[in-house]
């Protein structure tokens, strides 16, 4: 039976809790806690995408749009109407759920390339709306002045405080998703991935399952968007463009989409590459992503989490 080991989760949680303290001990990586906030935000999206793509086998090239909807709904409602950010966050997730339902219901009947095209088109449309609806979104200049978050008078006003807030959400999403994977619902998703005829013969309502997972992954992306907006206090459309959707795919492909840990590892590596390690390449950065995607699809079909298994079978063959 598919079991997700508890020990690595505990070790990972311990590392996450101690990381800011450790980073502050070493001046060179002192600012890594800040990058880790973004890693956490992207992890929320990739966890949902991993369930959608890796487990249920449905492609989405439009998740940047859901990320953007979360950010903009939070941004617009807090700055223009002065609503409580937490309530805005929930409203954003509800709006995203409805949009995902409307987009997903017809799209998920499509297969493979067609589903990819449909989500791609959706992503582009939303991106255009962010750019053009200047009255609401501020257009290409972006939207400044989004307030920070606070809870019962406690302000998440430093990097470290926000870090723990974001990672608490990531941990909750990780555990919730891992529970689903290990349940009857998770089996049904994997069943859909391998054989739709057999899954429906087992009584799996395929359309319903696909929609639920699509909506779930969209809502997680929306939550990530709200957290992003309240952290940076500023958003502009270029964050939510097609390239970001593709970057998300590179994250889960690199980490390994058939394993929920792949979502974390991929988000971690790609975020550090783009925020820190690839500055050296300047505008050639895109080429590096292309190379990563190419190499991973050819040599590591199961991503980095698949490497131990590959080595094991390689050693077995050698003996």
């Amino acid at each position: 039976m598919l079991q997700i080991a508890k020990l690595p989760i505990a070790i990972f949680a311990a590392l996450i809790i101690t990381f800011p303290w450790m980073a502050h001990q070493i001046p060179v990586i002192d600012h890594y806690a800040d990058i880790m906030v973004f890693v956490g935000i992207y992890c929320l999206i990739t966890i949902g995408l991993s369930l959608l793509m890796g487990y249920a086998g449905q492609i989405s090239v439009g998740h940047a749009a859901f990320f953007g909807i979360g950010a903009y709904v939070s941004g617009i409602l807090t700055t223009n109407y002065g609503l409580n950010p937490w309530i805005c966050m929930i409203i954003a997730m509800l709006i995203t759920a409805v949009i995902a339902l409307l987009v997903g219901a017809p799209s998920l009947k499509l297969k493979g390339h067609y589903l990819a095209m449909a989500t791609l088109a959706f992503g582009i449309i939303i991106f255009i709306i962010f750019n053009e609806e200047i009255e609401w979104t501020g257009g290409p200049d972006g939207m400044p002045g989004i307030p920070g978050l606070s809870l019962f008078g406690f302000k998440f006003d430093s990097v470290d405080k926000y870090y723990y807030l974001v990672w608490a959400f990531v941990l909750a999403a990780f555990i919730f998703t891992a529970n689903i994977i290990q349940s009857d619902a998770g089996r049904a998703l994997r069943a859909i991935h391998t054989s739709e005829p057999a899954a429906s013969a087992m009584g799996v309502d395929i359309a319903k399952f696909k929609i639920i997972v699509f909506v779930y992954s969209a809502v997680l992306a929306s939550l990530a968007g709200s957290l992003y907006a309240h952290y940076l206090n500023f958003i502009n459309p270029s964050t939510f463009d097609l390239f970001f959707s593709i970057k998300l795919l590179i994250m889960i492909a690199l980490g390994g989409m058939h394993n929920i840990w792949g979502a974390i590892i991929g988000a971690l590596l790609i975020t550090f590459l783009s925020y820190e390690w690839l500055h050296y390449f300047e505008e050639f950065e895109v080429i590096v992503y292309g190379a990563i995607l190419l190499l991973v699809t050819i040599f590591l079909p199961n991503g980095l989490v698949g490497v131990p298994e590959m080595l094991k079978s390689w050693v077995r063959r050698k003996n």
Partner: protein
Amino acid sequence: MNRLAQEHVLDVQGVAMTFGGLMALSNLNFQVKKGTIKAVIGPNGAGKTTLFNIITGSFPPTKGTVKFKDEPIENLKAHKIADRGISRTFQTIELFSNMTVLENVMMGCHTCVRTSFLSSGLKLPRSHRKETEILDRAMKVLRFIGLGEKINEPADSLALGEQKILEIGRALASEPELVCLDEPAAGLNETETHVASSLIKAINAKGITVLLVEHDMKVVMNISDEILVLNYGQKIAEGTPEGIRNNPRVIEAYLGGEA
């Protein structure tokens, strides 16, 4: 056979199916009695798999009705039909190759025991209890079909004969009233065929009605109570194995000759 067993579990009336201009089935009528084994035979392209796909809801028939326990099911989706108590296997093996033997059978329990997305995600005690129940059921089925030793092996690592048996096991896990087996002996060697036939008889002995498509005449003659013969989408004969064996129209359809 007692009186109760005379009741029809499945009643197919006037079923026709056309694909474009091709008539795959035309005006087909037959019943399956409760607790019996009925075989559907016929040359390739006779419409056997089309018939199975209609009964199990892959697509609705162009015309006609299919009643399961006196209720029409011909317009229901496959998963709804599975919920009603009809399960199936596939001609080309459709196991969940990314799962273990145990998980495949556990998946078969989906019709009876299922958990919501939310309660699974929150790992409510309810979903935990259900998972234990599913595990118990699956283990019972695996012991019954004789794969109790291989539960943790990946499904696609099994030998072909065992994969066929596993598919039958997966179909049984839903505790169906009717199982439709699409060529359970195809590609099996003699020993494996024998195992499969005994298993089908054992399933039937539990009171489960069996409808099967099969090419292996030894199996068909050996285990069926009744046989339905199709040719070019039409019923050409129906009756006991003895009657079918000597039916001139059947012999003609299989051996060729002037129609």
